[in-house]
């Protein structure tokens, strides 16, 4: 089991209490391509933040690769994110002072350390059609190129768990399909992918399908 959520609950208090996640139970095993769909603002991103240990839940257990995250220190959680989890964020988010290739190498170095590996930055840039943009700074890239770059960054360390928040946003059909294919490739290699989307087009590719509405996760 790569990831297991048991009775996860998350509350926000923004004047009135908001509960985006209620009693969430989810299991992600090696090879799973899990798609969670639902309209905007239903807590899909919040769920991914909780699974990625970027946001603490108020109740329940999150177990990643057999370790309960509640028992891990801040530094251990950070280390786990570097080595075992790959994120594709909903908004484009890159280090502005680094070129596209340097952004990938930075993530690679964070996950694998300084030495003892051959960089895959160029390979992933090529796979995502960005090899001619390797030396561009983020502000010089289009929205679609940034999106593909974030996918490359999430995959470069071959993480066990890939969390993708609307990874096909800003992409044309060809590149959207290519991104989905790459994610499925990672599943075939043994990773688990949890993808949230408001587009039900990708449900057919999923091994497990869920919908999230009013904080409740339902299998579909």
């Amino acid at each position: 089991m790569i990831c297991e959520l048991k009775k996860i609950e998350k509350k926000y208090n923004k004047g009135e209490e908001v509960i985006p996640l209620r009693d969430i139970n989810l299991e992600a095993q090696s090879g799973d391509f899990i798609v969670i769909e639902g309209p905007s603002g239903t807590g899909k991103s919040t769920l991914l933040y909780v699974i990625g240990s970027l946001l603490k839940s108020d109740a329940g257990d999150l177990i990643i690769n057999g370790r309960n995250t509640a028992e891990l220190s801040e530094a251990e959680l950070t280390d786990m994110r570097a080595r075992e989890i790959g994120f594709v964020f909903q908004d484009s988010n890159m280090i502005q002072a680094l070129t596209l290739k340097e952004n990938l190498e930075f993530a690679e170095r964070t996950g694998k350390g300084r030495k003892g590996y051959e960089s895959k930055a160029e390979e992933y840039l090529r796979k995502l059609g960005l090899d001619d943009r390797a030396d561009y700074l983020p502000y010089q890239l289009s929205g679609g190129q940034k999106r593909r770059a974030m996918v490359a960054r999430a995959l470069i360390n071959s993480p066990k768990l890939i969390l993708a928040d609307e990874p096909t946003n800003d992409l044309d059909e060809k590149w959207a399909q290519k991104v989905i294919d790459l994610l499925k490739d990672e599943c075939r290699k043994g990773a688990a992918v949890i993808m949230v989307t408001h587009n039900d087009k990708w449900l057919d590719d999923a091994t497990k399908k869920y919908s999230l509405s009013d904080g409740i996760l339902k299998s579909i």
Partner: protein
Amino acid sequence: MIHLIWNNIARRKNQSILTIAITALTVFTFVLIFGVFVTTRQGLNKSSERLGADAIIVPTGADIDGYSLLFTSNPESVYMDIGIMDEVKKLDGVAEVSPQFFSQTVDGGCCDFGTSMRLVGFDPESDFILKALMNKREYDKLGENDIVLGGNFTDYVGKESRVLNKLFHVAGELYPTGTGMDDTVFMRIDRARTITEESENLDVIPEGSDSSRLISAIMVKLDEGVEPAVFANDFLFTDIDAECIATSDTVASLQEQLSNTSAVMFAVWIALLAVAVLSLVGRFSALAKDRKKETGLMRAIGVQKKTVFGLILGEACTMALIGGAIGSIAACLVLNPVMSHIQETFKLPPSVWSPEMTVLAGVLGVVLAVVICFAAALRPAAESASLEPQAAITQGEVN
């Protein structure tokens, strides 16, 4: 990390230039003020050490103060009888005495130096002042027609020169002292009296007086442990018809004035420093805020808190090094002309501001820059490092 720090500085030029400029300006003012402060302080101390005389006895009623006697070369023509020297010798605490006769050269073709200068006759046998300051000399015993020049005259030794229309041989040259001595011509006391009396252009010897007994000042060296100020005070209660100036008092008075000026300069610099630190705190806070989303990203992909903290501090310190170096170099380039002007104004020895001092001031400037940038960046760096990744990503500005 170093790679990211450098790229953050180099590829966010506008932000970096502003930070570096604030740092450079702060360091520039520091090095400049430090230079001025050290030069004036050490210059005065050096002048004081080189004076040789602990006290100077001058004629009663002479319109002459310690400052003009020590630090300027304005010609002074005041006289008293040499008999006073015997009375001074007998006073308690007096170790050595040596007479001097003050006269002057005259402007306009009378001499080779082109301006009216102090001419001092001294007694080579009892002298204890010039002896210690001799830089170059070509004599064993100073002759009738030999002169010794102050430290501001260089490369005259061995040459002939006219003083009050008489031809003299330049037999010696003194080290610079930072005092009026540097612009003075020295010769034997008897010769100085004669040429002053014989000069058609000078009318300084009081009528009816025996010029061979006239002296202008008695340089006094006191026994060890005798305070010049106490000696000068005790002198008031003697019957000797003369006045006593304690040289240390004059130097101390000037030092006090300079201390006050330095205090004002220091206060202005502290105010500037405070403004710079506040500006830099603002700069680094803005930097941390601008990169909130980026910080969240780094934390999300596994960058540890301490690394985020180190990145911001590292960036601040690198900009400090650059700004500090620019400020220090600029100040060191400007320092020399400023120092020359100050040395000219205060008659300080030119050797005070050395290349070693320039390097020291520069290094201190850079260290100061690093310290203030480190202090200014500490809080923003700590706040950035402690941000929750999700909050940083969602609250950060969209890039």
